């Protein structure tokens, strides 16, 4: 209760709250497509690979947004180039590129600023959200939500049946890179809240929990966004009250939601199925 009281009274907490909710929503939305397209590793790669961009931005004292977007996009293209132009499989290409970018990022960050900054970027510190961070997140949020809403049809068909999409004339490669670009934007928006290392938990886990609960893509996107926002708020709550780093708390919150879905999903749940088969046995007996 004290938390809600403080939320009403402290501007910094309100900023953190708005930012977390938006991050949760867009991570859930983009994460749904990442999960269904089997690109979870790609999500992990891009989130790590924005680090050198953040470092360079610090050095040039420009907003970290620009550098992060640049290295994120560069990563997506490098991975694409290696897996298409050589016999290297895409998971290896991802490993090669993102570890290189991440390593470079760590070196640059330690040169550029103190070690505390590195911890914040790696693990998130939602309470230190500034005005500019909140606005970047809101603008990115608007871009992501509008894009997903406007092109939902194209995202759906290219994720489900890429061949049909290509057969009727959609540019599926463009759609792939557009999703990579949105993923980079989402990662940048998530830096303050969850941090580079654990962005993947916000992208993959809420969407996976939602995936276990529905047979409709639109419902999955909405549920994943809701789970993401809920986890982010839980993260904020703990980091405010108990002074914990927000990223790990958020990651564990998403995991808890996933475990609940995994056990109790009406159709897929482990426990649910156990009861169902027991019910059948009783009926048979």
């Amino acid at each position, binding site marked *: 209760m004290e938390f809600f009281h403080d939320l009403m009274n402290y501007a910094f907490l309100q900023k953190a709250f708005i930012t977390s909710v938006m991050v949760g929503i867009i991570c859930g939305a983009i994460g749904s497509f990442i999960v269904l397209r089997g690109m979870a590793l790609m999500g992990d790669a891009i989130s790590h690979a924005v680090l050198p961009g953040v470092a360079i931005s610090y050095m040039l004292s420009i907003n970290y947004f620009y550098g992060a977007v640049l290295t994120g996009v560069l990563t997506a293209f490098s991975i694409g180039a290696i897996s298409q132009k050589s016999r290297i499989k895409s998971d290896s290409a991802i490993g090669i590129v993102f570890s290189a970018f991440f390593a470079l990022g760590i070196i640059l960050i330690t040169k550029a600023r103190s070690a505390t900054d590195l911890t914040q970027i790696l693990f998130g510190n939602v309470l230190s959200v500034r005005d500019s961070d909140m606005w970047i997140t809101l603008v990115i949020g608007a871009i992501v939500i509008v894009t997903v809403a*406007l092109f939902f049809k194209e995202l759906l068909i290219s994720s489900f049946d890429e*061949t*049909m999409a290509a057969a009727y*004339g959609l540019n599926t490669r463009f759609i792939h890179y557009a999703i990579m670009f949105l993923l980079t934007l989402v990662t940048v928006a998530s830096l303050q809240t969850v941090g580079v290392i654990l962005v993947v938990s916000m992208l993959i886990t809420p969407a996976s929990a939602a995936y276990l609960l529905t047979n409709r893509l639109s419902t999955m996107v909405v549920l994943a966004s809701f789970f993401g926002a809920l986890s982010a708020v839980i993260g904020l709550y703990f980091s405010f009250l108990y002074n914990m780093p927000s990223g790990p708390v958020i990651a564990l919150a998403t995991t808890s939601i996933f475990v609940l879905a995994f056990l109790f999903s009406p159709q897929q749940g482990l426990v649910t199925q156990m009861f169902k088969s027991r019910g059948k046995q009783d009926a048979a007996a």
Partner: protein
Amino acid sequence: MTESITASNISVSYSGKQVVSNVSFTFEPGSLIGILGPNGAGKSTLMKAMLGLIKKNSGATQIGSESIDKVRKLIAYVPQRSNIDWNFPIVVKDTVLLGTYPKLGLFHRPSKADKAWAMECLKQVGMQDFADRQIGELSGGQQQRVFLARALAQKADYFFLDEPFVGIDVSSEEVIIGILRKLKDAGKTVLVVHHDLSKVKSYFDDLILMNNVLIDAGPVEQVFREKNMTRAYERPMTMFDDLEVQM
């Protein structure tokens, strides 16, 4: 009105090996055409190359006098069942509804009329009772029928089906071939990648017989002969003679 379909000099290679070599043919509208050949003959590859889904070394596909790229919305493609993620969160009726997407264009959502039309197509393949099932809950034959319904929903003039009869039940096979015949009678052009020799004569009017190179293309009676078949399958086709007698 539908027009003739022409493939000219189509060649495709995978990592140096030529899988489809200089294949050319023409068929008039209102044909039900089987693409026949042994495993690894390049049948699916030819189909994908015709549609521009994979990179060709050379060649082109024309509909009438137009390049196929200009008439993409008139084409419905049914992929091999193994290429689909059957765990995707989508139910049967929404899968069929995807067939209306090509003609909707950007920013337009399917209307009530589109949804009704999708249900109509689902009825044609006898799957209306499964409208709300997730697609992974269906049998192989039912899945194939749903994808045929999706192709029907496209209101296309040219249908490309990649191995639609693999691993499906007899009644689904009958439903599917019945619909393909109706399409043919309505003046549409239907191409089917196929490898079961036993039903070739009863299913198709025309054949494309290939084994990397084109062996022969034309009416079944002309193509489906022992000499051609022995060349395509690179072994004596004794069983083949029995089939011809049986037909």
